[in-house]
């Protein structure tokens, strides 16, 4: 007797056959695990290690150059276009968010939360001098992120370079941003020749990425220069006229423009605070800092100001009810002030900006600087339609 359903039976048998093949393959493969691969132990997996979702990867290969730095004009076997004075000393290396710490160890923690995408690096040497340097090109995803890692590592007393929007040199290194790239070049010894070669390579890199034009970041320009800068361009009568209290104000404020930094996450230890620019000031010679963050709306800025103050109080900050920031009341700006760890912090919002001052040694200095920052933001808010 023939089978009543030959077609459906054939399909069923075929499906079962495929399933059997799959099962046999899986059974076979699971015993062939590569013992050279090391992964997390169960306890660290359960603790939520950041590598939980990533598998072991190779860290370097000249064939794995990232497309983020792809340049049709890069010299063969190099991550950048070389001059005839230079030659590669090592193959190009590529690192992603999983493997970055294989190159820069604990410093990866600076880049990873700041939007890091990938990094290419390579060593180069001079063809006729016993000196070499290493170039690191970090793709940070956004110009603001590149500025953030640039600014947070900026050295003191350096020489500015005019080759890029943000760039400086030290005795043996140059550091710059270009669009969403942050670039470091570090020479094996202090050498003006090495610096010159590195500058040439930086220029080559920049010219090979013309699509990346400098991005104007609005917030840094909102930090007031300080009354010392204003005084130098004013006459005596103007200075006295500008003093609202009618009493000669002897407190001098001055911005250190090179100190402007962007912190992208966990700002001041508060996880709700992100994308905050900070700037260092001297108020009558004492160091103090100001901060500004552009939020989505005035309501958000106001709410965040309250929450940040709440956070400070949670960690021992005590409210200063007597804080008086000049013209705050006139402009309806609510001032929050706390004393914490023997310093004064003042926090407020103007328009969509959250702002304030930190690490003030005394209340009056903090009030003066807060007033200057507030005035700058009020002017900015009034200029907007």
């Amino acid at each position, binding site marked *: 007797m023939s089978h*009543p359903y030959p077609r459906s039976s054939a399909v069923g048998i075929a499906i079962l056959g495929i399933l059997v093949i799959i099962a046999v393959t899986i059974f076979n493969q699971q015993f062939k695990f590569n013992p050279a691969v090391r992964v997390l132990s169960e306890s660290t997996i359960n603790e939520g290690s950041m590598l939980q979702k990533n598998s072991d990867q190779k860290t370097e290969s000249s064939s794995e150059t990232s497309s983020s730095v792809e340049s049709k004009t890069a010299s063969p076997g190099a991550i950048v276009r070389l001059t005839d004075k230079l030659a590669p000393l090592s193959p190009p290396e590529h690192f992603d968010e999983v493997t970055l710490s294989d190159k820069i160890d*604990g410093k990866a923690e600076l880049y990873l939360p700041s939007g890091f995408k990938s990094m290419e690096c390579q060593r180069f040497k001079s063809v006729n001098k016993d000196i070499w340097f290493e170039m690191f090109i970090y793709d940070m995803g956004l110009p603001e992120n590149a500025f953030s890692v640039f600014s947070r590592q900026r050295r003191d007393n350096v020489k500015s370079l005019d080759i890029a929007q943000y760039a400086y040199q030290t005795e043996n290194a140059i550091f710059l941003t270009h669009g969403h790239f942050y670039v470091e070049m570090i020479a094996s010894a202090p050498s003006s020749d090495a610096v010159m070669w590195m500058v040439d390579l930086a220029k080559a890199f920049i010219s090979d990425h013309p699509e990346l034009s400098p991005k104007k970041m609005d917030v840094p320009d909102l930090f007031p220069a300080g009354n010392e800068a204003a005084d130098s361009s004013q006459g005596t009568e103007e200075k006295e006229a500008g003093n609202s209290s009618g009493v000669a104000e002897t407190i001098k404020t001055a911005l250190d423009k090179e100190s402007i930094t962007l912190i992208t996450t966990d700002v001041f230890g508060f996880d709700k605070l992100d994308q905050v620019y900070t700037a260092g000031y001297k108020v009558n010679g004492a160091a103090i800092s100001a901060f500004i963050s552009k939020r989505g709306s005035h309501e958000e800025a106001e709410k965040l100001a309250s929450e940040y103050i709440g956070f400070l109080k949670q960690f021992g900050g005590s409210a200063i009810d007597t804080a008086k920031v000049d013209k705050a009341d006139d402009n309806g700006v609510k001032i929050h002030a706390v004393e914490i760890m023997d310093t004064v912090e003042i926090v407020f919002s103007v328009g969509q900006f959250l702002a304030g001052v930190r690490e003030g040694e005394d209340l009056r200095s903090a009030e003066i600087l807060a007033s200057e920052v507030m005035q700058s933001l009020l002017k900015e808010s009034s200029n907007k339609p």
Partner: protein
Amino acid sequence: MDDKQINRREFLTRSIRTGIGVAAAGTAGYLFHDSKGPDLHAMAYESESTAWSLPDFSIRSASGKIAVVHGDKRESALNAALKALGGIETFIKKGDVVLIKVNAAFAASPLLCATTHPDLLAAMIKSCYQAGAAKVRVTDNPINDPASCFLLTGIEAASKESGAELIMPREENFAPLTLENAKLIIKWPVLKKPFEKVTKLISMAPVKDHHRSGASMTLKNGYGLLGGRRNIFHQDINTIITELAMMVKPTLSILDGINTMMTNGPTGGSLSDLKATHTLIAGTDPVAVDSYGATLLGKSHRDLQYLVQAAAAGAGTFNYSSLKPAILTI
């Protein structure tokens, strides 16, 4: 009966058969399922047990010694420190096999002070041989590729020129180790081969800022004995350094603060990251040595949680003053 129609009995029969098939497949899958995943360390080292531990290389009679030398020449500072501690002969005897654990983490020029300085290493090797050491070995498992690191840091040349054997961190040189009462160092690959027949261990590291732990000195130097994907330990950096302090008991710790990396550690990069602190610290209590080293960074043990944890775990004391350090200027 029509091909397109089945009766109830046929339907039930087929359904039951299908159900049994599905249940059987599901049961087989459940039985084969391993929710924990493979025990890779056991698999990788099937024939090896983890029943080995690093010997305690410390010398009881020399415990609690620390010397601080202020000067700008590494070799002179080292010699002065060793003399202040009772002489190299206090630590190295004729016939000893000495292992020097350097910090060769990055393929960086020695000028950047991100790694053990080759001049200091050469001076230490020389001292060991002068004391009658039969053999001196140098090792590390760098962060970057080992060949470049040992070459560009000058450590390879210093080792060879001084007659020491440089041992590369090849995979076969590691073996899984479990540290008693540890949370992290459990069946973890640790450098084993360089320790074969070793009788003395010297740890040599520079003083550096570290973005994650606050500082990298001799206790963190133990990181270079770990293999595998050790970067996962950055999630709990203070615990791992504490466990390394319990795992590694050197004969002598040498901390190079001749030029200290004050910022942008542990890689540094710019000479402007360095400060000429002109200090070399040597001692038999690595916690005390690091605690003094912290002062060169403008910090105290309170700023470095791992120092407090390591002291609490019994690895040493952060109260270096209590050891009455010998302080010299050359």
